[in-house]
């Protein structure tokens, strides 16, 4: 059976950009979760502070839909 692929946008921030990228379009499979994407990028899940899809907070288990914009941040703060 041919797998349906979905195109999404992945954005990285702070030191997650080092040796990776700021913004990239990716093809993902139907089953792919946010956690899978983080793992594939070689990012330690423990270091992830905030995940957003389309400007809303999300979790590792979420499966992005076609056209989603996923933003991955390390633990950061300020104020």
């Amino acid at each position, binding site marked *: 059976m041919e797998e349906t692929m979905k195109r999404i946008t992945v954005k990285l921030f702070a030191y997650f950009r080092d040796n990776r990228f700021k913004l990239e379009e990716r093809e993902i499979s139907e089953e792919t979760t946010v956690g899978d994407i983080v793992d594939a990028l070689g990012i330690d899940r423990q270091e992830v502070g*905030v995940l957003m899809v389309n400007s809303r*907070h999300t979790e590792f288990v979420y499966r992005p839909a076609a056209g989603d914009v996923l933003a991955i941040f390390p633990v950061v703060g300020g104020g």
Partner: protein
Amino acid sequence: MADKIFRVNMTNLTSTIEEVPPAWAGYGGRGLTSTIVSAEVEPTCHPLGPKNKLVIAPGLLSGTVAANSGRLSIGAKSPLTGTIKEANSGGTAAQLLARAGVKALIIEGQPKGDTWYSLAVTPEGVTVNEETELIGKGNFAVVDALTKRTGGKQGLITIGPAGEMKMGGANISIKDPDGGLRSSGRGGLGAVLGSKKIKFIAIDPKDGKVAIADPEKFREANKVFAKALVDHPVSQALGQYGTNVLVNIINESGGLPTQNFSKGQFAGHEAISGETMHDTILARGGRIKHNCHPGCVIQCSQVFNDAAGNKLTSGFEYESIWAMGADCCVDNLDHIAQADKLMDDIGVDTIETSVAFGVAMEAGVLAFGDGAGVCRILQEDIAKGTPLGRIIGNGAGSVGRAFGITRVPVVKNQAIPAYDPRAIKGIGITYATSTQGADHTMGYTIATNILGVGGKLDPLTKEGQVELSRNLQIATAAIDSTGMCLFIAFAALDNATCLPALIDLINAKYGLSLTGDDVVNLGKYILRTERAFNTAAGFTSADDRLPEFFYLEPLPPHNVVFDFTGKEIDTFWNF
């Protein structure tokens, strides 16, 4: 040496040293400034008249080697808000005042003539001196001249021309270890010092040291405390990117106020972000890390150089960069840095003044995005006190009234900072209920609403936001009394060893046996004391509201309004 109350009367130019009244003994920092202002200032007085008092107090742990304990509290009735005010700052003054044996410095009265003065604080007392040379000068010229006059080691508290002109946006500057400036920014306290005709306060502790009741216990507690701070990932990110790491994440959340609070995302966010700033500092040979006071282990400050490699500004903070950047649509970090330096020199709050520029842009005084125009108006109008300069220098509310603008982001006439309350609802509760006008640091719900520190709470729902803001405001009031930087809160929210170690530090210094409950009760006491002052000054729950446009104008991209009823907001005070 035993701490004392140092009191200066500017009506007759005398000073005294007094024993600490028993009722004040347990307080420091904000707890002490708010206690003294409440006890001694008539709530209905004119903030710039002879009845207001400016109270300067180091925190309970300032002057010790406890990590991050060098924060200073300055309190008074605010000329900007008309409420009680405490503005908190780094720099070296808190540590040096504590070492000079000053529990609090109270400045009262008002001289009649046009003569300006300076104060010299030593363990022996306060001397009032006439000052002529530095009147009208910017803060950096004051620091340079006094470094030559008195040596570089003294602590220094100064006002710029804005404070002399008693503008509502005037701040008080505190010298940092490298001759840079930190600011007690909010609420126009520079105008109060200016109304007392004091240009600067020099602090020389001589060989004064702070007494520790149980040095061994203190050392042990400090080890645990410092480790909790250093180990927390937020501390590490603050060291690398500074507070400006927030531009991109707040933008992504849709809560970055843009173009005078008409949008929640800024197209130019990447150009002004912490990541871009970090790379720019590296490329130009600035400093990524810098401490605003000795003993800070987080080092969120930095030195930002211009393209030629010369220092442009330091302590370049997210809220300043957001305000001059996204809110004014300026996407040029060099213009923002130049404006930041000018505001530090003139002595105006970067948040209040930049938000005022955003309102002025909406009024057509200059175009959105005109960073060069902002720098020009700062130099030619605000620094010189032209009518336009005074309108902007008196803050965002002043500009809105002068030009008939309705989208004026203020609460109790103080500009709303860096986080839109429509898209991040918890911070809206803080802005509305704060005893001091809109101020993110009073109860930083961003930690939990956006950053996932201290738990998670969806920023777009109403549920739980009042309780979150209440708990944070209580905790913050207590932390602001210790002399600790508020950034210890990230570690305290997540690491179970942090807060007990902080309480151990206080107990070891004073020979006490305080518990966590005592700290919570201290926070509640401070909030109630401040609110009682405001009530006596004429404020009611009707003042604990956001401006109307937040209820009427949906904010893109989430297209949400602020939707708490007055009754819901008022439940904040149910404690």
